[in-house]
C-alpha cells in the first residue's frame, strides 16, 4: 500500500515535471516564434566593403542560388564558368519549375534561413517579400564604389525596369522610390504574336482594337479548321486560377482602356476592378475567350499558350513576347518561321500601355555572404553576360540599352517578323500597370477566379462587385 502510494506520488511528480519540461521549449518557441526578433540594422552590410573594387575579393567562396526553369536561366547556367573564372567564386544552384518555384522561394524566405543567397523573382514579389524584410536593399551596394565596379554602369539599364523593382514598401505608393529590392535581369512585354500562314490564307490582318481582336479570334476559330488548320482556335490567353492569368494580355488590354485595379485615396486603396467600364471590359474578355479561346482555358498557363501557338493550335497569342519567341525561332516548333509580332490592339484613345514582367535577381537579407552574392548579381546583370545571353542564347528582351542597340542582337532578332518594331512601339508605354501592395497575390488570384466564373456564365457585375467587397477589407 505504501509502495503503491509512493509510486503514485512519484508518477504524479514525474508527469508534472515532464509537463513542465515540455512546456519550456513550447513557451520559448512561442515567444520566439513570430520572426526571429532580429531587429534590422539601419546600416547596410554594403558599408563594410571598403578599398578599391576587386572581382577576386571573395575568391574561394561558394554562393547558393535558387533559380526558376527558364531559357534565361539556361543562358545563365551555360555561362557560369565565366563568372567563376572572373571571381574565383563557385555558384551552387537549384532549379525548380515555375509551378513550384515561387512556393519554394516563399517558404524558404519566410523560414528566415539563408538557404539561398540569391534568387530569381518578379517585380511583384518585391511587394510580398519586401515588407517582411526578406530582401536585401541593393541601393547601398549600388552606391558603394568599393563594392561595385565602374563597368557595371547603372545608367545603361532601361529606367522603367530599375524603377519597377524599387519601392518604398508602402501600399499604393508608386514604384521608383525607396529601396532597390531586386535588379532587372530580363523582361517581357505583353503583345500579340500571330500565325502568318493562317492570316494569309484567310486574308486577315492583326487587330488594331479590342473589338477587332474579339471578332478576329472568333473568325479564326470558325474558319481556320476548314482552311486546313485542324483544331485551331483564335487566341491563346492564360486562364488558370492564378495571379499569372491576370498580368499578361488581360492587364495589358485593361490598361489600354485606362482601367485601374485599385484607386489610391491617401493611404487607403479601393478596389476599382468593378467600375462600370471594367465590368464591361471583363465581360467582353470572357466572351472573347468563349468564342475564340482555347478549350480547357481554365487550366491554361503560359506553357500551354506558348505551345499551342507553336503547334499551330492557336492563331494568335496575347501574352509575353518571349512566349512566342521560344516557338518562333528556327526549328523550335511546327509554326517556327511563320510567327509574326504585333503590338496588339490599341485602347480607345490609341494607348499602347503595356503591362510587363521583370525577371529580376534579388539577394536574401539573411545571407551570410552578401558581398560575394553582390559580385554575382553584378556579373549576372552586367553588360558582358547579358550581351552573350542575348546573342548566343535565348536571353532576349535586354534590360540594358547597350545590348538592345547592339548590331549583333538586332541582326539576330530581325529574323523574326515585326519583333523589333513591336518592341520599340510598346517600349515607352511598358511598365508595371498594377498598384503595388502586399496583398497582390490574393487580389489577383481572386480576380482570376472571378474571371473564370464569368467565363462559366455568371454575370460580370455581381461577380466583380463581390470580388471588390472581399478585397476592400483585405487591402484597404
Amino acid at each position, binding site marked *: 500500500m505504501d509502495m503503491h502510494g509512493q509510486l503514485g506520488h512519484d508518477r504524479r511528480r514525474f508527469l508534472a515535471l515532464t509537463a513542465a519540461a515540455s512546456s519550456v521549449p513550447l513557451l520559448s518557441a512561442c515567444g520566439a516564434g513570430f520572426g526571429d526578433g532580429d531587429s534590422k540594422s539601419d546600416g547596410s552590410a554594403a558599408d563594410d566593403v571598403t578599398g578599391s573594387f576587386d572581382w577576386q575579393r571573395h575568391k574561394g567562396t561558394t554562393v547558393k542560388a535558387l533559380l526558376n526553369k527558364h531559357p534565361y536561366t539556361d543562358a545563365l547556367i551555360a555561362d557560369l564558368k565565366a563568372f567563376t573564372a572572373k571571381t574565383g567564386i563557385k555558384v551552387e544552384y537549384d532549379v525548380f519549375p515555375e509551378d513550384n518555384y515561387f512556393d519554394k522561394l516563399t517558404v524558404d524566405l*519566410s523560414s528566415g534561413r539563408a538557404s539561398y543567397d540569391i534568387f530569381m523573382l518578379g517585380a511583384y514579389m518585391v511587394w*510580398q517579400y519586401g*515588407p517582411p524584410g526578406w530582401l536585401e536593399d541593393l541601393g547601398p551596394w549600388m552606391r558603394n564604389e568599393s563594392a561595385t565596379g565602374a563597368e557595371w554602369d547603372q545608367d545603361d539599364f532601361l529606367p522603367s525596369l530599375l524603377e519597377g523593382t524599387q519601392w518604398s514598401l508602402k501600399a499604393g505608393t508608386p514604384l521608383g522610390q525607396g529601396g532597390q529590392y531586386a535588379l532587372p535581369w530580363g523582361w517581357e512585354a505583353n503583345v500579340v504574336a500571330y500565325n502568318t500562314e493562317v492570316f494569309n490564307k484567310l486574308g486577315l490582318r492583326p487587330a488594331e482594337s479590342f473589338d477587332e481582336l474579339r471578332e478576329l479570334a472568333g473568325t479564326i476559330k470558325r474558319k481556320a479548321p476548314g482552311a486546313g488548320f485542324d483544331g485551331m482556335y483564335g487566341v491563346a490567353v492564360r486562364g488558370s*486560377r492564378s495571379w499569372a492569368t491576370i498580368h499578361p494580355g488581360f492587364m495589358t488590354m485593361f490598361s489600354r482602356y485606362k482601367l485601374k485595379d485599385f484607386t489610391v485615396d491617401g493611404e487607403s486603396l479601393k478596389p476599382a476592378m468593378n467600375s462600370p467600364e471594367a465590368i464591361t471590359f471583363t465581360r467582353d474578355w470572357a466572351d472573347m475567350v468563349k468564342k475564340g479561346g482555347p478549350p*480547357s482555358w*481554365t487550366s491554361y498557363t503560359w506553357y500551354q499558350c506558348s505551345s499551342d501557338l507553336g503547334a499551330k*493550335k492557336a492563331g494568335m497569342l496575347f501574352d509575353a513576347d518571349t512566349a512566342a519567341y521560344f516557338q518562333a525561332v528556327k526549328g523550335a516548333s511546327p509554326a517556327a518561321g511563320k510567327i509574326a509580332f504585333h503590338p496588339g490592339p490599341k485602347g480607345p484613345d490609341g494607348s499602347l500601355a503595356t503591362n510587363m514582367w521583370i525577371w529580376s535577381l534579388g539577394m536574401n537579407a539573411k545571407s551570410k555572404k552578401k558581398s560575394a552574392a553582390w559580385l554575382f548579381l553584378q556579373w549576372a546583370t552586367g553588360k558582358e553576360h547579358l550581351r552573350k545571353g542575348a546573342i548566343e542564347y535565348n536571353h532576349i528582351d535586354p534590360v540594358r540599352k547597350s545590348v538592345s542597340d547592339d548590331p549583333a542582337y538586332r541582326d539576330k532578332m530581325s529574323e523574326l517578323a515585326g519583333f523589333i518594331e513591336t518592341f520599340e512601339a510598346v517600349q515607352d508605354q511598358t511598365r508595371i500597370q498594377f498598384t503595388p501592395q*502586399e496583398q497582390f497575390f490574393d487580389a489577383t488570384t481572386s480576380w482570376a477566379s472571378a474571371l473564370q466564373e464569368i467565363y*462559366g456564365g455568371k454575370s460580370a457585375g455581381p461577380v466583380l462587385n463581390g470580388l471588390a467587397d472581399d478585397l476592400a477589407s483585405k487591402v484597404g
Partner: protein
Amino acid sequence: MSSSTEADHGAASSDDAAVAGAREKASAADRGSGSGPAAGAPPPAGPGAERSVPRWRRSLRPYLLIVPALLLTGGILYPFGLGLYYTVFDFAASKPQPDFTGLENYRRIFTDSSFWDSAWVTVLYAVGAAAVETVLGVAVALLLHRSTLVGRVLEKVLILPLMIAPVIAAIIWKLMLQPSVGVVNHLLRPFGLGGVQWTDTPTGALLSSIAVDVWVYTPFVAILALAGLRSLPASPFEAAAVDGAGWWFTFRKLTMPMLWPYVLVAVIFRFMDSLKVFDIIYALTEGGPGDSTVVLQIRAYLEAIRFQRYSFGLSYMIVLWAVVYLAAMVLVRYLGRIQNRAAEVSR
C-alpha cells in the same frame, strides 16, 4: 589491472552460474506444473540477478520505457500546440510582430461564406469519393474472389494505381482529360462525345477530381475487401448453399454483414483522407473554375503559404482537424458496433 579484470570476470561467472541455476530450477518447476511461460519464452530472471541491479536503476526502468512514447507524443503535440497557439494571433508576413486577437480568426472563418462554400465542396468530395470507391472496391473484390488465373493476374494489375503518387496521377489525368489532345475525348469521339470540357465547369471539375481519386484509391478498398472475403468462415455459406439460398440473398444476408467491418475500415481511411484532400484537386484544377473546387485544405494552403497569412491559414487547418477528428470518432464507434454485429452473424 589484469588481476582485477580476472577477479571481476570470476565474480561475474559465479553470478552467471547462480542465475543459470535459478533459471534451470524455475524451468523445471514450470515443466512440472505444466503452467508458466510458453515454450521458447525467456525464463524469468532469478532473485540473484534482480539484486545485482542497483535500486536506482530498477526505479528508473519504467520511466525509461515510456521515453519513446513520450518523445513520439511530444513530436506530435508540440507542432500541434504551436499551431493552435498561433491561431489566437494575427501573425502574417506583413505582421511579423502580431497582436493577440483571441478567437477572431475563428470568428472570421465561420462568418465567411467562402468557408462554408469550401466546407460544402469538401463534404461533397469526401462523400462522393468514399461512396464510389466503396461500391467499386467491393464489386472488384467480389469479382476477384474466385482464385482463377485471370483473377490472380488482375490482382497484381489492380494495385498499380496505388504505386503512383496522387499528384502524378492527377497530372496524368489532366493531360488525358485535355479536351483537344487528351486521350479520353479521343476515345469518346466515335460516340459523338469528343468535345467534353472536363474541368471547365464547376460540376465537371468536381466530378473529374472525384474520378481521379476513385482511380487511385479504389484498389485500396478492393484489396481490403478481398482480404476480408478470404477470411470469412466457410460454414455459413455452405449452410446457405445447402438450403438453396440464391446469390443475392447470400450476399445481402451473409457476405455483406460479415464483410462490412473490413470494408468499413477502408471507408474510414478513405473518408478521412478525402476530407484532407489537396494534391489531386490542386494538380487537376487548382481549385477552379472560380472557387468551385477549393476544398478546405486548399484554402488553408492558399492562406498560409501563398498569401502568407499564417495565423488565418492555421485556423483553417485547426478547423479541418476538428472536422476530421469528429468524423473519425463517429465512424470508429460505428465500426465497433458493426464488428460486434458481424461476430453475431458469423456465429
